[in-house]
């Protein structure tokens, strides 16, 4: 049961994020929701890498032959995903700043409604 706890957290994070994106009307909260989904997915990848009682995958840190290392590949994937997440987050916030300048509001129901 305890071993599955991270997976439950993953699903919970993704659902909370989706709920925030779907039910919140404030653009900043939508951005927060996407960040939550991203954290959930990253946590999922990190959990995949973990083996019981393992150390960080550094060559010099392995003291004996029997030391188990956690999988390094998902760590690399998570890192890449985080980097992409930073770029996406920065871009989204920039656009939110622009939207606020144009409409003076962050309510998703009120932006982009003007006639041309």
């Amino acid at each position: 049961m305890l071993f599955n706890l991270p997976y439950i957290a993953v699903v919970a994070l993704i659902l909370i994020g989706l709920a925030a994106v779907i039910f919140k009307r404030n653009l900043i909260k939508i951005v927060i929701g996407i960040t939550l989904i991203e954290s959930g997915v990253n946590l999922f990848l990190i959990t995949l890498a973990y083996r019981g009682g393992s150390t960080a995958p550094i060559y010099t840190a392995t003291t004996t032959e029997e030391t188990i290392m956690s999988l390094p590949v998902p760590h690399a994937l998570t890192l890449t995903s985080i980097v992409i997440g930073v770029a996406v987050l920065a871009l989204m916030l920039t656009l939110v700043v622009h939207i606020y300048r144009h409409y003076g509001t962050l309510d998703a129901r009120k932006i982009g409604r003007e006639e041309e």
Partner: protein
Amino acid sequence: MSIEELFNFLLDHSPALIVAIPLLGAFLTPLVGKINDKVRNAFAILVVAFTSFLVFLLANDILTNNTIRTYVFGAENAGSPIVRILFEVDGFSAYMAIIASILAIAGVIYAWSHMKEHTGQDKFYTLVLLMIAGMFGMILTGDMFNFFVFLEITSIAACALIAFYTNKGKAVDAGFKYIVISSIGALFILFAIGILYSQYNALNMAVIADSITFSFLDKIALVLLISGLAMKAGIVPMHMWLPDAYGRAPASVTVILIGATQASLYGLFRMVFSVYGNVFSSIDVTKDTVINTINSVNSVGWMLIILAILTMLIGALMALKQSNLKRLIAFAALAEVGYMLLGVGVRLASKVSQDITIAGETTTQVAFQGYSATALTGSVFHIMNDALDIGLLFLVAGAIYLVTKETSLNKLGGLARNMKYTTVFFLIGLFAVSGMPPMNGFASKLMIYQSTFQLNPIIAIVAILCSILLLAVFVKVFHSAFLGPKLPSLKDVKEAPKSLLIAMGIIACIIIFIGLFPNLFVENIVTPAANAIMDSAKYITAVI
């Protein structure tokens, strides 16, 4: 080094260079831009032209020899490529790369005059080249995670380009919607990749495809992949971002954006037919997974058919109502995507298992109906036609906007009197997109109609009806924008600048060529591509 050696060298390394050269060009552009505007524009065109040259070199080799090329990063092809990042180029990838390169070069040439009066052109060209690199990466890669990375590169660059007119609120709004939609889709795709990695300890598409068992977790991953990629390809009812994005982006970007959408569609094809190839496209009875899953294969096929019909109908109906020219073309583009998905659906829905009695011995056989190959070939063919037709129409719309500064069709009229070449190009696009003979759209739609008719006549009738609706839509545009008397407000309109006409001319020439000689094209280019996507075993054995 002799010329032949140079060509061989370029051919060997072309999968890597096709992605690396636009990437290098993208970051060199701001430095080149310090010299002169014209030098920078020429530099961007040169970079894309060289990339297209490499694409044609690679596609020529792959489509004529019917082979699969792999390129392993950081190592020679020998050794264990499974743990490394790998590019795998089969016929279908090469075919999609040709489409992407045509769109890219038309877009970059078009941008020369179209973006002339805007500031921030350095950043514009950097982002365009980044997007082109991401697009090629998605098409050529053979690694699941790499696919995700390139998907994100494409969508980040595309988002910034959609919101390029930051002085217009709606453009920024469309960019925000696009990045929300695409990042959520991409995150679910990443989740699916994680699920697949947890089961098979591999990220390579061929390795996963080899060992896939269609377990419970695989089904979850498949659903996440299909819905994420379908959203990025703009399938109804997840299409609402597409008219916003296509309608608000500069026309030169919209053309390349079509390529990005098609690259997502390519991902859908690749996931369904290659990664899950043992489930969806295998006819090997010895694999015990195959027979048990025929029901779920058929139901996925019918689901895709229903989505495709919805996409066609809603796209065509909504297009009829629009009065903004670019939004109208965007909805028409949506309808065209439906035709491509229809081929996939028909292919999957026609998979059957039948008991055959030969000499008293009853054996179970899994097979596809004969028409399903035609359906898939037609839909692969239609990818090219849609990209060219819709691309041409968007270029015409951008040209109209450039000379009149009007987006609404209600304020246009009588443009044919001043813009002769543009009118001709629009007519070509009109006939092609609505599937009128003798343009290219007719040939591919004919293949789809006839194969769909054998599965279920009603679907084919709906498809033909949508095609007629599209014709009605564009006749309306032609009448209200080009025909009629000269409007007083548009008295001084001039013909579009030369670079716009060159870009439109390139695409129009290709449309007419494919339209006049469809068989030449289908036999030499489309059929190898369709065969490559249908043959998942070959895709797997090329790596392992």
